[in-house]
């Protein structure tokens, strides 16, 4: 395996994205939060994996350039940081309420912000990756011609 950290990051991101969508839907439709604990623990793991990956990634691509792929990557990075921060803020009432009969009281604005930032992460990670792959393909075509 050439990039185990990247694979771990993608796996955690996929787990968090699918788990988050399941929680979003179930919370709305049925008032339940399936896999809430797993979402929190995987979120903690994602934070560490992402921090390690971003450190190496930045050392490879620095300095910042005025290009679309850089701008999209920056938005994705900021969105992921805000998602993790809002996630930790949401995890606090969950931690306090664990093992009790009372459900955790999540602030609706914080919950909404976490959902929006998560969507920004998926959108701008996808757009950043797409822009980089498209740019690389164009460079390869140019080299062949």
């Amino acid at each position, binding site marked *: 395996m050439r990039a185990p950290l990247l694979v771990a990051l993608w796996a955690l991101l996929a787990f968090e994205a699918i788990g988050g969508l399941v929680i979003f839907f179930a919370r709305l439709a049925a008032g339940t939060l399936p896999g809430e604990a797993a979402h929190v623990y995987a979120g903690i793991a994602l934070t560490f994996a992402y921090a390690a990956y971003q450190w190496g990634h930045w050392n490879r691509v620095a300095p910042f350039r005025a290009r679309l792929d850089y701008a999209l990557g920056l938005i994705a990075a900021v969105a992921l940081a805000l998602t993790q921060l809002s996630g930790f803020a949401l995890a606090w009432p969950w931690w306090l309420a664990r093992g009790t009969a009372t459900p955790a009281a999540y602030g609706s604005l914080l919950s909404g912000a976490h*959902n929006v930032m998560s969507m920004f992460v998926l959108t701008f990670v996808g757009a950043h990756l797409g822009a980089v792959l498209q740019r690389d393909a164009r460079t390869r075509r140019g080299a062949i011609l």
Partner: protein
Amino acid sequence: MHIPAFSLFSAISELFVTAGVLFVVRRNWTRRTFPFALFIGVALFEGLINVMYMAKRAADASGTAVATEAAAHALSAVMKIGFAVHGLLSLLAYLVFVVLGVFAHQEQQQDPPRWFFRERPALTWTFLALWVISIGSGEVLFALRYLG
């Protein structure tokens, strides 16, 4: 029934956002300059204002938010499922719009320029159908909730 100002604003602004999305696609389809500023403006507005609103409403409607339990009880199960489906569709449509817009912008910058949406009619029409369903479902939910 009283219509919250933010709900009304969101329902109306979604139509303007849709006009912006259609304009971006049409410019590319008719081989004209990509309106990058409009694309970014629409993407940020949709993300920060309308999706924020949708997520807030979704959190309110879930019934687990402390201050909004009364509002949650006022929604039927069908409406809750409708909100959830609309929320997921909106997220998907937004993601696809931004990614395809980035592709279209980059392809137009090539020499000679390429026309992303024009060269992929099946993808373009599928995206537009998804967008219209996403926005349409929101407008229907708005009408059922406040005008029905």
